[in-house]
C-alpha cells in the first residue's frame, strides 16, 4: 500500500458502533461478537432490542459498574454485565439451539477478512503459528451460519495498511457467503449478488480512497452519501 492510503482517517470505533446500532431494527434479537461489535451495546440503551450473550442469557444489560459486579453474571467476552427487566438464563447448549434454529435476527461480528462473495474469515490468524484446524472458533461459526443477517464490523485495512476486503479470503473461513453488510472506519458496503456496493463513506473520505484500500472492484451506489448518524 502507498503512504497516502495509510493516512486515511475514518470513523472511530465508537462511531462505527453507532452506525451499526442505527442499522438495527426495533423488535429484534441481536448477538454482538467480541471487539468493536461489543461497543454497539453502548448505543442501544432504551431501545426495543434484546441482546443475547451466547453463554446463556437473553436481554443482557449494560456493563456492570464496579459495585454491581457479580461473578456469575458475565457476557461472552467475560465482562461483568447487568440484568434488565425480562432477562432470562439458559444453558449454552440451548443458546446455540436458538442460534442454529434461526431465531437470532442479527449477528454483528468482527473479521480478519471478508470476500466479495460475503465469505467471512475471523477465527484464525496464521501468524500465531498453530496448525490450520486450531484456533479460537468460539461461537463465531454457529452465529455466522445461524443468524438471519450477519453484519461485519472491522477496521478497513490491516495494521500494515493491507486490504482486508478481498476477492478471496486467504485466511481460514468462518463461513461462506454469509456477510450482508460491512461497516468499517472508512465505508459502509453492502454485499450483493452483483458484487460489493459502496453505499456510504466516512466524512472526508472519497469513493476512490475506499477503492484504493479494497481489492475487489466496488460498485459505487448512485445514492452514495456520507455516513449519517
Amino acid at each position, binding site marked *: 500500500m502507498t503512504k497516502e492510503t495509510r493516512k486515511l482517517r475514518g470513523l472511530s470505533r465508537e462511531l462505527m458502533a453507532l452506525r451499526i446500532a442505527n442499522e438495527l431494527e426495533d423488535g429484534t434479537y441481536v448477538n454482538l461478537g467480541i471487539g468493536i461489535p461489543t461497543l454497539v451495546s453502548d448505543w442501544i440503551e432504551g431501545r426495543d432490542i434484546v441482546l443475547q450473550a451466547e*453463554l446463556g442469557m437473553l436481554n443482557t444489560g449494560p456493563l456492570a459498574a464496579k459495585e454491581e459486579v457479580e461473578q456469575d453474571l458475565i457476557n461472552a467476552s*467475560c465482562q461483568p454485565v447487568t440484568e434488565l427487566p425480562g432477562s432470562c438464563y439458559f444453558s449454552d447448549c440451548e443458546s446455540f439451539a436458538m442460534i442454529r434454529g434461526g431465531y437470532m435476527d442479527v449477528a454483528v461480528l468482527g473479521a480478519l477478512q471478508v470476500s466479495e462473495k460475503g465469505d467471512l474469515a475471523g477465527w484464525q490468524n496464521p501468524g*500465531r503459528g498453530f496448525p490450520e*484446524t486450531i484456533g479460537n472458533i*468460539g461461537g463465531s461459526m454457529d452465529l455466522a*451460519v*445461524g443468524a438471519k443477517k450477519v453484519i461485519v464490523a472491522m477496521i478497513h485495512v490491516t495494521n500494515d495498511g493491507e486490504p482486508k476486503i478481498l476477492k478471496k479470503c486467504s485466511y481460514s473461513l468462518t463461513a461462506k457467503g454469509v456477510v450482508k453488510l460491512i461497516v468499517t472506519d472508512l465505508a459502509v458496503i453492502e454485499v450483493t449478488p452483483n458484487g460489493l456496493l459502496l453505499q456510504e463513506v466516512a466524512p472526508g473520505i472519497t469513493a476512490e480512497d475506499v477503492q484504493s484500500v479494497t481489492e475487489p472492484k466496488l460498485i459505487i451506489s448512485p445514492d452514495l452519501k456520507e455516513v449519517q448518524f
Partner: protein
Amino acid sequence: MNKVFPSVDEAVADIPDGASIAIGGFFTAGTPNDLIQALVRQGAKNLTIICMQMGPGNEDISQLIANKQVKKAICNYPFYRSASRGADSPVEMAVRAGEIEMQVFPMGTFIEKLRAGGAGIAAFYTPTGVGTVVEMGKEKRTFNGGEYLLEVAIKPDYAFVYAHKGDSMGNLVCHKTARNYNPEMAAAGKITIATVENLVEPGGLDGDAVHVPGIYVQRVVKINRPDYFPSIE
C-alpha cells in the same frame, strides 16, 4: 440416596490414567476450579480434557498442562484472544510443540456433542462449519437443499461441574450465566462430580427450579464460594 463426598480430593481419587474428563465453565463463570486443583494434586496422566478453554479465565487448567497430565484437549476457544498475552503460556507452547493433541470445534457443535453423549444419540448433522476446515474428514449430507456435517457424540468418563446449590441426591440449581455448559456435561459424564456452593438435604430445593436432575450426578462436594473478579485480560 446420599452422594455427598467429604472433599474434592476424595471425589477425584479413583480417576485413572487415560481418563476423559469434561469440565464445565465459560471463562470464569461456573468453573469447578476446586476439582481441577484436586486433579493436579491427584496426578493422573494421559488425560483427555473436554473444556471450552485451556487457560483464559481458568489458569488451573493450564496447571494440568504444565504438569504434563494432558494427552489431548477438546475445546472451542482454547487460547487467549491476544496473541501476545498467550504466546508463552504453557498451553500454546505445548500445542505448537505438538506435545498435546488438540481438537477445536465450533461452540454450538462442541456442546451439542456432549448433549448427544448424555442423551444416547450417536451423532447428528449440523450446518455449522460447512465450507471451512471444520468439515475435513467428516461426512457431508444435503437435507432440504442445505449442507450439513456429521458430528459424533462425546461420552466422557467423568464430568466436573459447578452449581450454586445442590442437594445430597445430586439435584443441582445453577445461577445466572454460571449455568453455561454444566447441565449437558453433567448428563454426558459416566461419573459426574458436582461442586456446590450450598449443600442442602432432600426437600431443600424447589423441584421446579432444578437445572440438573440428580440422576446425572454421582458425587456431590460442598465447596466455598470462590472470590474473584471476572476477567480474561
